[in-house]
């Protein structure tokens, strides 16, 4: 469904952020993008959604194909209509609009009024907390509620592919668990493909089918989620676990013992 072929992204004509990233998302799949800060995860999402163009970024090499159509030259408005919807990082609610209005904005380009109404109910079913607040000004919602709202808004477009950028950012562990589970549920119920960027590696790999690790603008590791979960490097560097799976003691560990092999 989505194919990213060896793309390079340059910001403001000088800053090269991605240097050859390739990945694929198949129908109904959850694919996780993992990696340290500044690795290029968000940039990859923005390249797909076309949002780069609003930030003076550009795909300078490679191609992005969605349903067999090349989309890397399209603007974000166009790509949204094709069926990709992005929930951006950092809970971008439209603060002075009500919760319901926020959701309706998500369905702006849809013509089927009946379907929009049903989907509104569907979103409220997934997020009962949001339903109670539907008339409230969304800027005053709590962090978790705002995150639910933003995912709900992306859902309202009834996309074929949803791009979620760090849905767990700044949320309490319990909340993270809840949101992650709902994402999985959406994926199963709606057969919706999801490309998920997460810092919470364990949570992401729990629900993903496939994962990619990005470092310095390159994919350094990819594989089925199960394999990644057992991968020693992933466990060590992104989950903070030692071989046995127990929490690592920082008193005993010698930091130089193990390095990320791909940095050399």
């Amino acid at each position, binding site marked *: 469904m989505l194919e990213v072929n060896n793309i390079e992204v340059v910001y403001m004509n000088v800053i090269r952020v991605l240097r050859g990233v390739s990945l694929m998302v198949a129908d109904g799949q959850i694919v996780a993008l993992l990696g340290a800060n500044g690795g290029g995860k968000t940039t990859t999402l923005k390249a797909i*959604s076309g*949002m780069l163009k*609003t930030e*003076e970024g550009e795909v300078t090499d490679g191609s992005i194909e969605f349903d067999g159509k090349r989309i890397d030259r399209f*603007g*974000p*408005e*166009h790509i*949204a*209509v094709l069926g990709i*919807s*992005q929930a*951006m990082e950092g809970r*971008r609610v*439209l*603060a*002075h*609009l009500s919760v319901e*209005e926020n959701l*309706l*904005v*998500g369905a*702006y*380009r849809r013509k089927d009024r009946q379907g929009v109404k049903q989907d509104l109910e569907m979103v409220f079913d997934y997020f009962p907390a949001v339903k109670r607040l539907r008339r409230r*000004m969304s*800027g*005053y919602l*709590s*962090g978790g509620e705002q995150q639910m709202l933003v995912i709900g*808004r992306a859902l309202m*477009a009834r996309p074929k592919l949803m791009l979620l950028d760090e849905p767990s950012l700044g949320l309490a562990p319990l909340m993270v668990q809840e949101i992650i589970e709902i994402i999985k549920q959406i994926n199963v119920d709606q057969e919706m493909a999801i490309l998920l960027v997460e810092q919470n590696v364990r949570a992401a790999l729990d629900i993903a089918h496939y994962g990619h690790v990005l470092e310095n603008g390159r994919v350094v590791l990819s594989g089925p989620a199960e394999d990644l979960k057992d991968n020693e490097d992933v466990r060590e560097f992104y989950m903070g676990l030692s071989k046995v799976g127990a929490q690592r003691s920082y008193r005993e560990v010698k930091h130089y013992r193990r390095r990320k092999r791909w940095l050399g």
Partner: protein
Amino acid sequence: MTFFLQLIVTGVAQGMVYALIAIGFVIILKCSEVFNIAQGHFVLIGGYLGWTFLVLLGLPIWAALLAAIATAVIMGLLIERLMLRPMVGKPVLAVIMMTIALSTVLGGVATLLWGAEYKAYHGLLPTIIMKVGTISIPSESLIGLIVSVICVAILMFLFRYTKIGLAMRATAEDLQVVQSVGIKATTVYAVSWVIASVVGVIGGILLGGVSGANMDLANIGLKAFAVVLLGGVNSVGGAILAGIILGMLENVAAGYLDPILPGGGLAQVFPFFVMIIVLVFRPHGLFGLAHIERV
């Protein structure tokens, strides 16, 4: 007391017209963060358009209004397409500079077409004199009041209950989010410029109906700035109330202070004094949207 009430009533009527003009300004500011310096020049064009359609072509008032609105729509679309669209994505300050250029262009067009002369069309608006108790309401004021109230009501409805209104309010919040759901920002900008141009032109006709059209009409734009700053730059409701306040202050000052002070003209300045004092204590204006900050 009658004198005072009389001043208040005409002030409210005049203030509504200011409010109408200021709304055009607020809409552009909200949608694109651009301070439209040329808003006053829409009023100028409107004043002359009123003369053209009412006097030169002798149209009845409703036809003249419709013709002026149609012209304003075309003007708004052209301005957005030719001057603003190429500036999308450029720094806001550059776009504001563009609106300064626009104001000069519109002033030039007015001079070119109408020769910068004083064109009176006083008394061409229908005469309805209303008397409430001892206060008589002059017909220009009454028409100004009615037309502005209708326009403001239409705009409020547009924002609250229509899809394009939702898109405009959303764009005012977060441009990227709006683009990510497939709303074309350029459409929203075009609509906001059309609205600004239409309300400016209507305001111009209403003011022209009172004092005739001349180049000074462009300075009404300054009053629109004052209204906007007083009301809070991003609040439509604030613009309405501030417009009324400003209109009342201006009339009361004209009624009581001008006869005392030699030379007069304090009425023009007095509202700005009040604006400055209010801004010292409330920098967001009276009704500016507070920035929602969750802690």
